[in-house]
């Protein structure tokens, strides 16, 4: 039994190993992109629209609304990154019901890659929003003594992101696998449903945490100006 789909290698050449994680990711990417392409091919711009378009619009506007509620201004510029994070993780969890499908998020490499993307995206958006100097200054707040702690916090939360998602997804798959060997009939189905719920929650948590980190990095701290009323 494999703990991670990384261990299932389809093609290998030295350092380059095309394993199940990458293949499943590609399959998932193809499904997502083709699905989007098909649904958005005949988008209605009027009041009447198809059910699929309605579903997609609900998802997209829901994500946008969540980003706004987190506190990010100009939610549309973050929609691509944070929305894709959510949809990718959620789709991975959802596809676990397909027999033979191994969720890419059950691989620590994938969750680490996603966490690294978040790790890079936070300073990227922070510098884009405040400028490099202002952003770097945030590591010395409230005092310079906090610099190492802030850096450790940055790294540890990235690590936590990766491990949390990996642990949840891997555990879900492992539990189902173990239960199938013990009680092969009804109980694994219940656990699969629970796993779906857990997967959705994890997708939500991962993307919301990423949004919160980006929001914290992009928040401009300005001194309060005393307003003087001119008479």
């Amino acid at each position, binding site marked *: 039994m494999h703990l991670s789909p990384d261990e299932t290698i389809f093609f290998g050449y030295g350092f380059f190993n095309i*394993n199940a994680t990458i293949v499943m990711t590609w399959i998932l990417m193809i499904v997502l992109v083709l699905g989007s392409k098909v649904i*958005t091919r005949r988008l209605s711009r009027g009041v009447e629209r198809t059910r699929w378009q309605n579903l997609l619009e609900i998802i*997209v506007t829901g994500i946008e609304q969540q980003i706004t509620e987190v506190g990010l201004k100009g939610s549309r510029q973050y*929609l*691509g990154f944070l929305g894709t994070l959510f949809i990718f993780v959620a789709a991975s969890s959802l596809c676990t019901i397909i027999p033979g499908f191994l969720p*890419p998020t059950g691989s620590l*490499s994938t969750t680490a*890659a996603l966490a690294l993307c978040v790790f890079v995206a936070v300073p990227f958006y922070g510098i884009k929003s405040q400028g490099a100097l202002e952003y770097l200054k945030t590591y010395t707040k409230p005092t310079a003594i906090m610099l190492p702690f802030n850096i450790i916090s940055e790294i540890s939360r990235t690590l936590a992101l990766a491990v949390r998602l990996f642990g949840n997804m891997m555990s879900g798959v492992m539990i189902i696998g173990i239960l199938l060997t013990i009680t092969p009939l009804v109980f694994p189905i219940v656990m699969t449903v629970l796993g779906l719920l857990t997967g959705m929650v994890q997708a939500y948590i991962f993307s919301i945490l990423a949004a919160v980190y980006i929001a914290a990095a992009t928040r401009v701290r300005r001194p309060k100006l005393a307003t003087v009323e001119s008479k």
Partner: protein
Amino acid sequence: MLIDWFTVFAQAINFLILVWLMKRFLYQPILHAIDARERLIAAKISDAEKMVKDSQQEKSEFAEKNQEFDQQRADLLKEATIDAQTHGKHILEETKKAAMALASKQRENLKVDELRLHRELIRRTQIEVLSISRKVLQDLADENLDKRIVDNFVKRILDLKNPKNEIQKEQLRPAFISGKGNFLVRSSSGLDPTQRTSILAAIQDVFGFSKEIAADLAARIQFQGSKDLVGGVELTINGRKIAWSISDYLKSLEQGVKDASLRQP
């Protein structure tokens, strides 16, 4: 080893590609569609608001016009009512006048008809009365009446002696003494010689003629019976006439009745 660094790198790349693809094929089209729909809905709402505003304005204008029309209608109706009443009064007055004129004319016509009928009645009565009188007198004519008639005629001649009839007497005198022309005595019944003599004697007495003139008159005198004279005697000489007859009285009566009927309204 749980982490395969090539896989991490590949997944990061895969994720970034997926971000780009999703942005390209999902978010942008969906967001554009949503924006377009929002614009469409906003435009429709704006149009609807404009329509509502326009309709409210039109409604108020319509209400204002309606009020104006109502006012105009009321004014026109009032004016028309006053005109109709005035016209009605005028027509009524004219009708009354026409009716009065017609009634007046009718009354006049009735009066004329009545008068005509009255006159006709009088005329017929007169004719009947006269006719009856004549008939009665003709029926009653006998010798005594003839005698009385001749006596009255003689009295009439003798009446010329009266000074008030002097003018008439003098006018007759030349006719007697000229010795020319007809000397005619007409009577309703034939006169007997005594009556003829009494007439000549009366003439002699009134005018005082000589014997020659008297003889001449006696020679010339002609006596003639006439049915036209109803109970009377008539003496005609050279266009002059002395007469007494009931017929004259009747004619006088007839003339008097005619004059009276013409004077009557």
